[in-house]
C-alpha cells in the first residue's frame, strides 16, 4: 500500500476503502480541541479567533500540530449558524466556549424567514468559509473538516429550546417550517464550505437525541432533516460524519437510515458492539471526554488500544472536550493510534500488545 497522507487515509476510511490504520481526528465545532493549554501556546487568543478567518485557521493549524490530531477542524463553537439566523451570541472567554445568549424567537410560529443568500453573508459564516479556504490551500495533504450544527439543535438555538421542543408536539406545522428553513440554510452553508476546500463535513446535533425526543419525534423530525443535510453534503461531493449525543439505544435502528459516511456516538455507547450490529456502517469515536480530562495517559492509551482492537474505523473524542483537558492526555490518545502499526504493517492493538 502506498504511504497515505492524513487526507487520503481519512477519505479512504469514509469510502470504506482499505487503509493502513484508523485516522485519529477531532472534527471541530462542538468537538474541538482548542483547549486552554493548547491555545495558550499559540499566541492566538479566544474569543478573537472565533470571528476572524486567519486567526481561526492559525489556531486550527496549531491545534493539529500540538495535539497530533490528523485534521484541521473549524469552527471552535456551535453558534455560527444560530448567530447568522439572528440569535444573540456571547463569545465567551479562553476557558468558556461561545454560547447562545438569547434565542431570536420564543415560538416556532414567530420565526421570520429570511433569504438564504442573506444568511450566507451574515455573522461569521464567511469567516468560517475563509478559514477553511486558507487551511485547504496551505496544507493540501491535511483534511479540513468543517462542522455544522444539526437542524434540531439549530432550530432550538434560534427558537427558545423549551418552547421549540413543545412546538414539536403542539405546533407541528410551524415546527416543520422552521426545520425546513434551517435545513435549507445548512445545505447551502455546506455547499459554501465544500467550495472553500473542506474535505468532509461533520454534522453534530446534540439536541436530536433519542433521550430528549423519544423515538417517535426523532423519527418525525430529527431523521428526515438530518438526512436532508447529509444528502446536501453528498450533492456537494463530500463525505459526512454525523454525531449524535447521549444514549442512542432507543433510536439505534434508525441510525443507518441517516446514510452518514461515518457515525459518531457518545462515550456510554459500546462502539464495538454497535459496529457489530451494523457492520456496514463506518463508526467514529469514542474516547470519553471525562477520561481525556481526568484519566491520565496510561488509561487513555489503554482505552484507545481497546478501540483499535475493536475495529473502530476512526478514533476520536466521544463528545465535546472540556477546555481544561490536559494536552498530554490528548497526545496520549493520538500517539497510541499513530504508533499502532508494527514494522510488518499489522495493527498493534492493546490486545496483542498485552495491555488491558
Amino acid at each position, binding site marked *: 500500500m502506498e504511504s497515505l497522507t492524513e487526507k487520503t487515509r481519512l477519505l479512504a476510511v469514509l469510502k470504506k476503502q482499505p487503509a493502513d490504520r484508523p485516522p485519529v481526528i477531532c472534527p471541530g465545532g462542538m468537538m474541538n480541541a482548542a483547549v486552554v493549554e493548547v491555545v495558550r501556546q499559540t499566541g492566538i487568543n479566544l474569543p478573537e479567533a472565533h470571528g476572524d478567518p486567519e486567526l481561526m485557521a492559525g489556531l486550527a493549524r496549531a491545534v493539529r500540530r500540538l495535539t497530533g490530531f490528523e485534521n484541521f477542524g473549524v469552527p471552535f463553537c456551535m453558534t455560527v449558524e444560530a448567530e447568522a439566523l439572528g440569535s444573540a451570541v456571547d463569545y*465567551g472567554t479562553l*476557558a*468558556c*466556549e461561545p*454560547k*447562545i*445568549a438569547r434565542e431570536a424567537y420564543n415560538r416556532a410560529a414567530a420565526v421570520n424567514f429570511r433569504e438564504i443568500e442573506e444568511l450566507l453573508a451574515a455573522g461569521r459564516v464567511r469567516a468560517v468559509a475563509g478559514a477553511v479556504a486558507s487551511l485547504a490551500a496551505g496544507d493540501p495533504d491535511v483534511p479540513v473538516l468543517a462542522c455544522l450544527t444539526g437542524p434540531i439543535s439549530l432550530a432550538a438555538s434560534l427558537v427558545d*429550546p*423549551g418552547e421549540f*421542543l*413543545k412546538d*414539536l*408536539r*403542539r405546533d407541528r406545522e410551524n415546527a416543520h417550517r422552521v426545520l425546513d428553513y434551517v435545513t435549507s440554510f445548512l445545505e447551502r452553508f455546506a455547499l459554501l464550505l465544500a467550495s472553500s476546500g473542506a474535505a468532509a463535513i461533520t454534522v453534530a446535533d*446534540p439536541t436530536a*437525541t433519542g*433521550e*430528549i*425526543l*423519544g423515538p417517535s*419525534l426523532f423519527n418525525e423530525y430529527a431523521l428526515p432533516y438530518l438526512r436532508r443535510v447529509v444528502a446536501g453534503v453528498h450533492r456537494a461531493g463530500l463525505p459526512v460524519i454525523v454525531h449524535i*449525543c*447521549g444514549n442512542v439505544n*432507543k433510536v439505534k435502528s434508525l441510525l443507518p437510515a441517516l446514510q452518514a459516511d461515518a457515525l459518531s456516538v*457518545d*462515550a456510554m455507547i459500546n462502539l464495538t458492539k454497535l459496529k457489530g450490529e451494523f457492520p456496514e456502517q463506518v463508526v467514529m469515536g469514542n474516547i470519553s*471526554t*471525562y477520561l481525556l*480530562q*481526568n484519566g491520565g495517559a496510561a488509561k487513555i492509551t489503554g482505552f484507545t488500544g481497546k478501540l483499535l482492537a475493536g475495529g473502530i474505523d476512526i478514533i476520536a473524542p*466521544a*463528545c*465535546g*472536550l*472540556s*477546555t*481544561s483537558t490536559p494536552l498530554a492526555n490528548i497526545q496520549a490518545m493520538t500517539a497510541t493510534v499513530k504508533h499502532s502499526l508494527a514494522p510488518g504493517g499489522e495493527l498493534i492493538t492493546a490486545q496483542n500488545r498485552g495491555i488491558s
Partner: protein
Amino acid sequence: MPEEKKELLQALSDAVFNMEVERAADLARECVDAGIDPFEAIEKGLIDGINRAGVLFEEEEYFVPELLLCSDAMYAGLDVLRPHLPETSETQSGRVVLGVVEGDTHDIGKNLVKIMLEANGFEVIDLGRDVPPQQFVEKARETGAAFIGLSTLMTTTMARMEEVVNRLKEEQIREQYKVVVGGGPISQGFASRIGADGYAVNAVEAVKLFRRLQGA
C-alpha cells in the same frame, strides 16, 4: 368524596397528564366555582397529573417535550388556584438553590427538576443558566438553603460542578449543604468522584433523591 368532585379532580389530573394547557386552566376554574379546597385541587388534580406524567417519563413513554407540556398545563392550573389559597399556608419540604453551571445555557433538564421539586413541596431558588460557581455558594448562604442543585448537558462544562464543591470546602461550609448533580453526561461515578452528595438520572428520580437526602 362526592362523585362530582371526584370526577372533576380526575379530569384536572387528566388534563395535566394529557398536556391540555387551556383545559387545565378551565377545570381549575370549575374547581374554584364548585367550592373545592384549592389545596385538594392542586394535590389530587394538578400534582397527581404531573406525577403520572413523571411515571410515563421514567418508563420512556413520555420524553422531554411531553413532560414540558404537562408542566405547562400544571402551571396554568396553579395560576388559577394560587390566588384562592390561604396566605402563609405553604408547607415546604426544603429550600433548593438550583441552576445550570457556568458555560452552559441548556436549561430544560434543570427546569424539569424545578417543576418536579415544586410539585412536591420544595422551594426552588432558580439561578437560571450559565451560573458562575461563586453565585451558587453565595445564594445558598444568603437564603439558608439546604440543597444546591447543579445541572449541565455538556461534557465541556462538567468540571464547573467540582468547582462549586471545592469552593464550599474552601469556605468550610461544605457540610451545611447537600450538593446534588445531574444532566446528560453526569453519572453516579462522576458525582462520587467530585464529592457531591447525590446524582439523579432524571427529574422524577431527583425528587426521590432530595427526599432521601433530607431524611439523612
